[in-house]
């Protein structure tokens, strides 16, 4: 029902955008430029994908035109049977490449999808800017990338130029940030002051990467990873044996490298009775959504913490008016996800870059390669979630994370970390 309502709002918004575009540009329009999104907007992943798409849509709706060209958002859904699917993502990118009006895409949402899409988009080339990909090996040549993930930035990019950018903090920041927070002596929001943690992952590119990064930092800073386990999200539904094992080894916290779509919070719901209520449940941005709280049942308590790969736009006074306008257009808490305003920023950065590319091309519609050059040249772009410039790898130069805690049944801002 929530999905249906979201969709209805989206259709209305698209309608309004279309209408506005028609009236304001009128006969003076120089043509149409399209921005694509590739996000999982149906099924289990929709709880995070759809609000992100709405953020991007809102940026396009607000901009209406760029240098006299009418802007239009072309949304693609990379979910199959309700779960993000790399193959579907690749098909979407191929469809985008076939549409000459599309000059860049916002997305994808999941690192595993990005891994499959980057090579196709890079060969074209087509600019990609992701609000939420956090796997570090997508952009950084680290010694363990080939062994741990099976790819390196170079192996994903057949051409020599980089077409991939993101605004989210990589997992080399996200995992360790939670480890530091867990180890640091309390009270909140300074830290939790624990030394023994069990670390699990869901055997996915993202989950395994962020869990390894957490474990590495936690051990390096004096903590002990007492139990390290992986689970197959399709088969593992009963976590009681994992929980018994973690308890047997004296874990004070469980860090789960996973998402709520891969069952990252089922175990939290099964903790009731097995653990004392003071056990901490920690995770990356993948568990920081409403689905996780449903799965946690009666255990959705204040001892759950999650990092989010971007800062909280509602903590940024300069963003207040746009955030309020968004909330008026998309009312209800389910329309604001952790990456909604990152989605807005990605679309806004893309529109800004397209504008500069048009200028550089003496007012004509730019090529896709020119748009990539313009994004790479983005300098101190003031977005809702931060001020963005990109390094040579496509990473934000000063990524910001936020830490969230469950308070009265909702994920709530606790603290912010900047690298």
């Amino acid at each position, binding site marked *: 029902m929530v999905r249906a309502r979201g969709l209805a709002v989206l259709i209305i918004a698209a309608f309004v955008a279309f209408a506005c575009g028609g009236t304001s540009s009128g006969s003076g329009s120089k043509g149409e430029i399209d921005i694509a999104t590739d996000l999982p907007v149906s099924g*289990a992943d929709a709880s995070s994908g759809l609000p992100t798409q709405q953020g991007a849509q809102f940026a396009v709706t607000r901009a209406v035109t760029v240098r006299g060209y009418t802007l239009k958002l072309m949304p693609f859904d990379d979910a199959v*049977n309700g779960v993000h699917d790399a193959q579907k993502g690749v098909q979407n990118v191929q469809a985008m490449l076939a549409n000459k009006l599309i000059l860049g895409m916002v997305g994808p949402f999941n690192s595993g999808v990005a891994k499959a899409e980057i090579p196709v988009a890079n060969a074209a080339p087509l600019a990609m800017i992701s609000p939420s990909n956090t796997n570090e090996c997508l952009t950084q040549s680290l010694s363990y990338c080939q062994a741990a993930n099976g790819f390196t930035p170079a192996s994903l990019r057949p051409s020599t130029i980089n077409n991939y950018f993101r605004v989210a903090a990589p997992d080399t920041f996200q995992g360790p940030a939670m480890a530091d927070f867990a180890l640091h002596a309390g009270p909140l929001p300074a830290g939790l002051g624990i030394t023994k943690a069990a670390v699990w992952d869901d055997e996915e590119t993202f989950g395994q990467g962020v869990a390894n990064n957490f474990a590495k930092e936690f051990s390096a800073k004096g903590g002990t990873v007492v139990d390290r386990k992986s689970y197959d999200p399709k088969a593992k*539904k009963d976590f*009681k*044996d*994992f929980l*018994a*094992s973690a308890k047997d080894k004296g874990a004070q916290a469980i860090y789960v490298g996973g998402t709520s779509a891969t069952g990252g919070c089922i175990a939290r719901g099964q903790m009731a009775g097995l653990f004392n209520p003071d056990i901490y449940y920690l995770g990356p941005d993948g568990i920081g959504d409403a689905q996780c709280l449903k*799965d946690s*049942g009666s255990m959705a308590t204040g001892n759950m913490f999650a990092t989010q790969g971007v800062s909280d736009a509602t903590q940024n006074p300069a963003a207040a008016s746009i955030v309020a306008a968004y909330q008026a257009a998309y009312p209800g808490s389910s329309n604001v996800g952790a990456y909604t305003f990152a989605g807005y920023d990605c679309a806004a950065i893309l529109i800004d870059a397209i504008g500069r590319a048009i200028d550089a091309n003496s007012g004509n519609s730019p090529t896709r390669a020119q748009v990539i050059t313009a994004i790479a040249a983005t300098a101190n772009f003031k977005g809702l979630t931060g001020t963005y410039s990109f390094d040579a790898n496509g990473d934000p130069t000063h990524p910001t994370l936020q830490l969230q805690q469950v308070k009265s049944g909702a994920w709530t801002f606790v603290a912010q970390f900047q690298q």
Partner: protein
Amino acid sequence: MIGALARTPATLRNFGNSQRATLAGLLIVAVAVVLTIQHVLQHDPSYFFQILTIGIADGSIYALIALGYTMVYGIIELINFAHGDVFTLGAFISLALFPVFGIAEGGTGYGYVLPLLAVAVITMGLVAVVNVAIERVAYRPLRHAPRLAPLITAIGMSSILEGAMYLWKGPFNLHYPDLLPITRLNINGVSIGVKDLIVLTMAIVLVVAFTLFINLSKLGKAMRATAQDRDAAQLMGIDINRTIAATFFIGAVLAGAGGIIYGLYINNVDFSLGFITGLFAFTAAVFGGIGNIPGAAIGGLLIGVIAAFNNGYFDSAWTEIVIFGILIATLVFRPTGLLGMRVPEK
């Protein structure tokens, strides 16, 4: 006992009985047992009992599903791949019925016993009707077709059921109310969950009741006769169609009960649950000897315990490899399973 598979290929049976294969199998089992004991001794004994109860509780749910596989196989030699999804349907229907009977998480514990029983009875009935309908529509017309044909329709039915549940509730994980008491008993320092005990008891009661039914009732006798020789049974005046429909009905009753017990124990269901759970239960049925009812029950328990021990003491990434390794090893070395397929007297 229901039991058939009179036509096990002679070569397989010979290989299964050959000394070399038996020795190899025993050696693998011995190594596994020694390794496990070694790991068990490194931990607190109470941990051992905790893992054991989790394994037995999980295993008793697999056993309930495995019984359905084994019964249907025994009577029409069909591996009913839709059975796992019938089990999921039981969980889904009961979940939808809870609000109707005013059952919600966090309410008064013992006041729920009667409404829960009502939900269970309605759910088992509805699921059984669905399963009988599946048999009527998808399997009966193909009863004399080559064996591959009903197998493929079974896979098709599985997809249809999953698709229907997907459309009904969506792809999300659904939280199943945590109604059983979460308290734990402390027996000589060993902590055992009341929840695990309840699940275990419910499953055992169902399996025993079912075994008695098959052995003592007239319908059970008809089922056994049909399994042994369908044509002869028909000549003796047994209504074959009715007997087979009854088999599907009873199999679904157990699967529906399994779905409810699973929900109450795991507190989490989703539309695709039946696929992998069904495969585990199928493995259990083959492990115990397909067509053999005590075999399915013991196979289910063993699969649950092996999975729990592997997760609790070893690397969990190996669990599925171990379980399906057992499936393949059983098929290769001992195709008749632990207790043996019951080969009808001729």
